[in-house]
């Protein structure tokens, strides 16, 4: 009888221990959107626009190089924090988790976009390409962000083939549903900027090609030929925005 009671007691203690070890934190439940990264790292409240700017910390952006004084000091701290995270997150799965976290935050000024995705391994790039294919077409910014990051890591033919595929992809017809054009009354005012967003992944691929061509053609720029191939593929895009942008870039950077 005593043994049974002791067993129950041990089980109860184990239950308590397990609960304490696994309970969610006081701030962020599993469904809560993530606050800006710098704000979370500094344990400060999420930065809000109506805060007195003089008292407000940088909510997310990258800062100057570490050690520089001045108003960007908080940003430097954020960058340092971001760099420390980079060291921790270096497996493909961790990189993907980090990418997911940033995409979920909808914070394009997360400094880790600049620091955590450089020199991606082939495995990580494969994971990112798979992520790209899993995302719904309507996730224009997320898709474009993945292309943007992969574009910073172009090394193999496989990498370039993916970029060409993105550049020549069928256009997204509306932000609500890529498969169908919006049925609306004409309104010239409402469509500002939408063209870029609808073509955003392909535009990201093209901008990377443009960046490569800016370094100049020739033997000193071994990726220039690949970049021109990408642009040639984009010129055939059914998207007018993409085709026009490709034509403009080609006009500027092609050899006479």
């Amino acid at each position, binding site marked *: 009888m*005593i043994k049974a009671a002791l067993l*129950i007691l041990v089980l109860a203690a184990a239950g308590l221990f397990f609960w304490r070890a696994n309970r969610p934190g006081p701030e962020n439940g599993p469904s809560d959107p993530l606050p800006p990264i710098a704000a979370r790292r500094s344990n400060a409240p999420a930065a809000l626009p*109506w805060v*007195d700017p003089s008292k407000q910390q940088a909510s997310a952006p990258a*800062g100057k190089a570490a050690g520089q004084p001045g108003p960007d000091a908080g940003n430097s701290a954020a960058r340092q924090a971001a760099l420390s995270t980079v060291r921790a997150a270096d497996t493909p799965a961790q990189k993907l988790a980090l990418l997911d976290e940033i995409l979920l935050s909808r*914070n394009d000024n997360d400094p880790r976009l600049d620091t955590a995705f450089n020199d991606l391994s082939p495995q990580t790039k494969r994971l990112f390409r798979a992520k790209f294919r899993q995302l719904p077409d309507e996730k224009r910014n997320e898709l474009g962000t993945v292309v943007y990051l992969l574009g910073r890591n172009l090394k193999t033919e496989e990498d370039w083939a993916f970029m060409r595929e993105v550049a020549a992809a069928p256009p997204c017809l509306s*932000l*609500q549903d890529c498969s169908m054009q919006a049925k609306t009354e004409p309104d010239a*005012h409402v469509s*500002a900027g939408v063209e870029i967003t609808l073509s955003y992944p392909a535009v990201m691929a093209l901008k990377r090609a443009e960046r490569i061509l800016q370094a100049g053609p020739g033997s000193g720029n071994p990726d220039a030929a690949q970049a021109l191939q990408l642009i040639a593929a984009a010129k055939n895009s059914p998207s007018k925005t993409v085709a026009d942008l490709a034509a403009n870039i080609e006009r500027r950077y092609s050899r006479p």
Partner: protein
Amino acid sequence: MKGKVVTGLIALALAALFTAVAHKRPYAPPADLRDAMSDGSALADLRSAGPVSAPAPVPAAAPVPVDNQFPGAVAPAFDKDVPADLQRQLGLDLAFVGTLSGKNTSPLHNQIFGQMGGPSYLRFFSDRIKMVGLYDWDKKPVVACVIPAISPAKMWLSGSYIKTSQPQIARIMIVFHESRHSDPENENWRHVNCPDPFRDANGKDMLSILTGVPLAGKPGCDASPLGSYGSSLIMLKNIQRYCTNCTEKVRMDAGLYADDQLARITDSNARNAIRNDVYK
């Protein structure tokens, strides 16, 4: 005696178990967008917003609760039917722009916003927009608008502001474009009709991407560098060129969307003024 000890141990164990179960935090999700979308309630909110084309009674304002945490802060008031997620996203986007700092400022930027940086942008917004309402997307697919005839200090946002996926810079561009319409000058910087024909640099007709309808002759252009298209272009171009704490993506996005807006400045003098200001 032995029985009492056993009974006591069992009671203690049961109490410990009860405590563990009773205090386990429930995984109750907040009322965020994805939840609202999954059960359709966000759409229902939008549909119930009612028309906005006619002067309608303005719903009672519901101040943003977080405002109380920040003394001296300036926050827009939100109509009661503006979903919390929409309020939050606007807050996060303005927080993002509020942290920007720059090493330089173009003359036109200085004229419109002041020195480049978060305080200037927040002041520009908060001086103009005092209230935010919910726009009925089903009526017209606009992400945001200011309707001066109803209230120049009120911005209407549709659920599309959070339901569609856009770069953060694109949302900011929309918000500041609409904020400019709040100004009384030049009939709230009313747009002019685009020229007819209206063609891009490649000689092709400029089309509304939403409908494929040519923009020629439609009121979607500006003749001034200081209007809604021009001011948001100048803001973005300054971010692209001078922001010292932006990611490369933000700067690239800012350049992309700014360049796209330039096509809407149809007056040659206005275009030249902008070119001299931020493109030279």
